[in-house]
């Protein structure tokens, strides 16, 4: 069930109705959300197929088959059980050592699950290859473990709860049910944002309210997310990026460069579009969430970029990885090491392929160089000035685009071919259609426009009477359908 497809909108509408019907009572409303979240996730498993075949009488359903089909949910359940036991343990003891042990159990079990399902094959195959090179061949067969959709995000959310309880920033007063709902809350389940307990879990107790203006803003946010995804990201992907990355040698150097820029734009509009819908959908249930992006491609240095890009992940890595390592309040070499570690492992978080680690590593090196430069100059520049901003932006954007090639290419070998093709310096942009140019242009304008323009549009939508909003939303849907009738793609971050 993709956020930008009709099934999700119907599902969202039905859940919205059921939720607000019982919103005055805590447990009924939380039950509605948990059931909806379970159904939302189950839709991505073979469970609906089993259900439909069972209804049609074509299948005798065995409990083991159902359990196997729904095993990702069982994995999430196991995460919740272990973590909640750790939370309860920490709530009942003041002994520091025991609390530390409990939080360690939670972190290790969560990361262990992630390592097994996401990186098991990568580590295993790499070990086998290294042993073979060392003259100790071992028989390697892929483990074949399927990565449960959204596990990377669920694990990070899960760790944040137990660590926050350990640190005392979240009170361990929530029930197992609330803990489970926090992990599985459907607007955030598959690709985040990676919200903290304070943003969601701590709010389950309070009776939610939905101000009409907030509701309208949430709808506007969802509509904006749809536009970003369907009118920009998918148009660029289908019109240019996918073809060029599939066969870079078929295209000129200029087209390859445009494809790299196109992918950079596509990734932002795809993921920020998704985040808009997630934030809008969450707000419809009375849970406003913090922003996940802040015009990252306007950044003038890479630190700024990472403070604007996938903010919930960056801040998670900062709070739960970088700072525990010592952050930058350590010796300079150690601070650089910490930075590299965060970037390398943060890169690898994106997928079970060493190229993500290279990608993170390159960003890490670039960040280290930037920091060293600041140390030499005596500190971070307080202002850039017009020329400095242009230079900074150009360098930052170039690094981001150049490294996106590694991020997007199916393998390092393809990435190498891509870079080689660019370095051929062949001219010609015949394969960049007018539609793609238009989408890129629109993307640039939307990205460059100040927030107040977006806020103004949002206020105008809020100001409209309900029938006019309905007309506007249907008109928008019709327009998007014309644009997106060629192909509908899943969100890029679903694969992570």
């Amino acid at each position, binding site marked *: 069930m993709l956020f930008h497809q009709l099934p999700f909108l119907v599902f969202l509408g039905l859940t919205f109705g059921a939720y607000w019907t019982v919103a005055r009572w805590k447990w009924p409303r939380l039950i509605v959300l948990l059931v909806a979240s379970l159904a939302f996730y189950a839709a991505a498993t073979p469970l609906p197929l089993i259900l439909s075949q069972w209804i049609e009488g074509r299948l005798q359903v065995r409990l083991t088959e159902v359990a196997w089909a729904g095993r990702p949910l069982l994995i999430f359940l196991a995460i919740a059980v272990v973590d909640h036991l750790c939370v309860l343990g920490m709530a009942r003891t003041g002994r520091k050592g025991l609390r530390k042990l409990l939080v360690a159990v939670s972190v290790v079990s969560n990361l262990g699950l992630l390592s097994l399902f996401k990186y098991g094959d990568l580590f295993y195959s790499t070990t086998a290859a290294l042993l073979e090179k060392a003259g100790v061949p071992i028989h390697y067969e892929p483990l074949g473990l399927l990565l449960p959709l959204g596990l990377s995000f669920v694990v990070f959310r899960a760790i944040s709860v137990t660590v926050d309880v350990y640190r005392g920033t979240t009170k361990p007063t929530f029930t197992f049910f609330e803990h489970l709902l926090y992990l599985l809350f459907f607007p955030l389940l598959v690709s985040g944002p990676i919200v903290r307990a304070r943003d969601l879990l701590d709010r389950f107790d309070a009776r939610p309210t939905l101000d009409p203006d907030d509701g309208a803003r949430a709808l506007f946010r969802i509509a904006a997310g749809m536009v970003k995804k369907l009118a920009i990201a998918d148009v660029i992907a289908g019109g240019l990026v996918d073809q060029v990355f599939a*066969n870079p040698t078929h295209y000129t150097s200029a087209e390859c460069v445009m494809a790299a820029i196109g992918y950079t734009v596509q990734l932002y509009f795809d993921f920020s579009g998704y985040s808009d819908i997630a934030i809008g959908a969450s707000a419809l249930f009375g849970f406003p969430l913090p922003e996940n992006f802040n015009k990252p491609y306007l950044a003038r240095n890479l630190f700024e970029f990472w403070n604007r890009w996938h903010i919930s992940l960056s801040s998670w890595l900062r709070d739960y990885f970088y700072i525990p390592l010592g952050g930058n309040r350590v010796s300079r070499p150690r601070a650089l090491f910490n930075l590299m570690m965060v970037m390398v492992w943060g890169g690898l978080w994106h997928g079970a392929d060493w190229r993500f680690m290279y990608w993170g590593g390159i960003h890490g090196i670039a960040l280290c160089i930037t920091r060293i430069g600041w140390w030499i100059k005596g500190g971070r520049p307080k202002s850039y000035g017009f020329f400095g901003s242009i230079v900074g932006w150009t360098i930052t954007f170039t690094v981001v685009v150049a490294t996106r090639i590694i991020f997007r290419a199916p393998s390092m070998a393809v990435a190498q071919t891509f870079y080689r093709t660019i370095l051929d310096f062949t001219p010609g942009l015949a394969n960049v259609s007018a539609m793609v140019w238009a989408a890129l242009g629109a993307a640039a304008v939307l990205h460059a426009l100040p927030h107040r323009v977006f806020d103004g549009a949002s206020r105008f939508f809020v100001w409209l009477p309900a029938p006019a*909003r309905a007309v506007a939303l249907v008109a928008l849907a019709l327009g998007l359908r014309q644009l997106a009738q060629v192909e509908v793609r899943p969100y890029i971050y679903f694969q992570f």
Partner: protein
Amino acid sequence: MKRHATGITLALTAALAVGLSFAPLPDAWRPIPSLSREAPLRTLAKAVLPDRSRAPDTLAPDGPGALAAGPSNEGPSALELEAEDDSRPAPPLPVAFTLGAPEARNVRRLERMVEGLGAKHVDIEEPCLVPATDGSGCQRRALDDFFASLEALQRGERNEPVRIVQLGDSQIASDYITDTVRHRLELRYRSAGPGFLFVDRPTRFAGRKVRTGEATEGWEIVKLTDKKRSGLLGFSGVRFTATDPQRTTFKVRQARFADISFVTRPDGGKLDVTADGTHLSSLLTRFSDAALAHSRIALPPGARTLTLDTSGGAVSVFGVALETGGPGVVYDSVGLPGAMYEVYLRAPEATFNAQLRHRDPKLVVLMLGGNEAYEMNRGWQTIDDVRRNAAAFIDRLHAAVPKSACLMMAPMDAGTRTLGGDIEPRPHTDEVAQAIREVALQKGCAYWDLYTALGGAGAAGRWLAKGLFNQDLIHPLPKGAEVIGHLFDFALERARMSRPHPVITEDDDDPPGLSAASRRALAQTMAKLDALEADPRGERVTIVQLGASHTASHLFTDEVRAQLTKTFGDGGRGYIAAGRPSPRLQRAHVERTLQGSWEVVDARERPPGEPFGLTGARAVGQPGASLTITFGAGEDGGDEPATLSVYLLEGPEEGRHRITIDGRRVPDFGRETAGLTGERSGRSRPERRAGADGRLRPMRPDAGARPDGFAPLAPVSATAATAPRVRILRYPVKGTSHTVEVTNEGPGPLTVFGASLEKDEGGLVYDALGLPGATAALVDGYDRAAFVEQLRARRADLYVLFFGTNESADPSLDVDALAAAHHSLLTKLRSASPGAECLLIGPTDRLERRPDGTIAEAPSNTRVVKALRQIAQREGCAFWSARAAMGGPRSMARWQSLSPPLGHDDLVHLTEDGYEALAHAFGDELLAVWRDGAAERSGAAQAKKEGP
């Protein structure tokens, strides 16, 4: 009101969207067009319960990712599971079928899939090239010459290969579709080698390696699909260039010649050619002009790999064609991801023509158009561009190979997903198909409408729902590609059969399968199988197969046993002869050892009349020697009641035997109870008595009386008190995994025939009693009493006789003697098991190599087949022709030429795969007879029960 503004907005939005969707507006103005096309509830259900198919992968239409289509771990689709269900009747085959029985099973499965998919058989359209002189018809059609060359192959009149070159896009590059067609053509006309292979995968990083060598990574790859100037490229569309030493290695797969296509160049280096490490040739590619060149190199017999190594400069290679040099079909599949007619026109005409002319194909098949439709959808091409490019390409083709036939295929349907989650057919595919058809018929090429064959518009979505299409809605999965290959093969075969006098390999006098009379001859066995299926713990069914090397290899019988026991349950391994260790027994989890001094004698070495075990062999051990037979080695044999029997010879001169089972000595009171003669002994069934539940149970002695827990049942037989006599010691055991050891305690030698193990109740036992080189006459010559006595203990319900292959080699075969030997043997079998039915398997196809190297039919193969058919009829036995199942006369040559080969190099025996294929065909036939008659027998039984 304001409090509920958000809810009202949502409700109004939904109402407006639904209302507009039902309004009489163009689809573009309807938010959910499917609402008005389908029942609203259905649409709503679809919206809430999402599509069964997963979200699409982010694949480019025809990129390298496309080649990886078809994950290896994909499970069987629902359609496949339905198609695997053999109990469903197979649709009638549309053409006379000439593939042999093993492939027939596959065809039946694919036909059911075709039906389930809504696909259909579509005939090839052939324009008339030369009208009849009287103007009333056509003298020569587009594919006449091609089919004539195939039929010449069929008749053995053509000694060169018939080459087919298939060009296409990623659908062909993956070789899934062409693999099926190639396999079928090779089955009919035999293989003349794998054909043209690339140095490496054109995309290097993706796709299958089935049509390429295993190359080092330093080859530079230039393709026609690259938009930059490509330089010298031929019809194969790819040039591989090594500027520093590089290597590529090909699997030779029975080829005897390698034809290397390379490019000369002023800076050309050296290309060393080796086979299995032996240097064959060095090609110097340096020449003043860049030009296409070829070098044909003979490969040493038995070569497994061919390696090309470059050195001393730049070396550019197109690829290597591997061929046997003999008659057969070579099917080149040359696919380029992203290819279009326009792409092939980019190749320099001279090089294109020269390379294609060198291949000298009899048919060029073109499967293009999918990428053209994609580009039209993007506005990058018009239908006029497509038509113009296709026509220009065919002109070039005719200029290059004027004698070659051409066949153009329509592109297949592709799909796109809409916002509503619907799958819509991608526009323009039908237009492109129509344009290609026009060009084909206008330019004298045959046309096959693949688009319609797959089910027309919307096929991609339907195939996806059935699990046969990739999520990209463009490429079929391997299983779907197999269906497409099947459809094309049938289209070709139907076109061939539509000629006035097609060659049909099937022998009219030797039809495949079991005839109605044969089916009647198996009625009792089928009824027993019915009972066994209804009650898995009911009466056991035993099938005893006697024969020569086909039986002795155990490969055939192991497969048939495995197939039948899947339906009727495993009754145990049955009889195993005493003898030396044999790897052939491992598949059936049986191990055999001999310790000490043993001599194994078989009936071929001795005069007639001597006693042998059921396989025509006996093991004679000196004092102190022992032999063991382990049943169910490494298996959990369960704990159901079973009987382990030891077959040996007893007499005054024979040594005393000591028997242990699983290391524990078991009592032998057979000696004390000896004296029963063979004629009066021997329950052909274990004695039964009613248990508490009223069911009959085998009678067993009081095991508690013996501290070791083993107690032999009453001895079955003995022949005379003083003369050597067969003794069969029977021990009740639990389960079917046991080791029996027989030791000679002296003073004389001890003769052991074998041992058997089977459950007391339920299951099917299939004995393999084969002696290499045996004939029916030889088996008939064993000592009658010993032979019958042992056979009686086997309690056969059905005898299967698989002789005739050895008799086929006898140029002066006496058919009457053959009939007499079978009659005599069958009489003995029937006396051992009155009421047992019989089935004769005719010999496999047997060929011989003449001194001049040509291959001819074994002198009496056809006579033996016919004679055995008549003998079966006369004796009231069923008859199944192994040769017909293989595909008729000379089918051995085709089986031998396949990859992997099904026929052995000796042209007499089959390979492991071959025996497996033949056994599947036989097992399928038996199961089909059983299934077909089940309803009838059930009805008859019911009527009998109810009375008049």
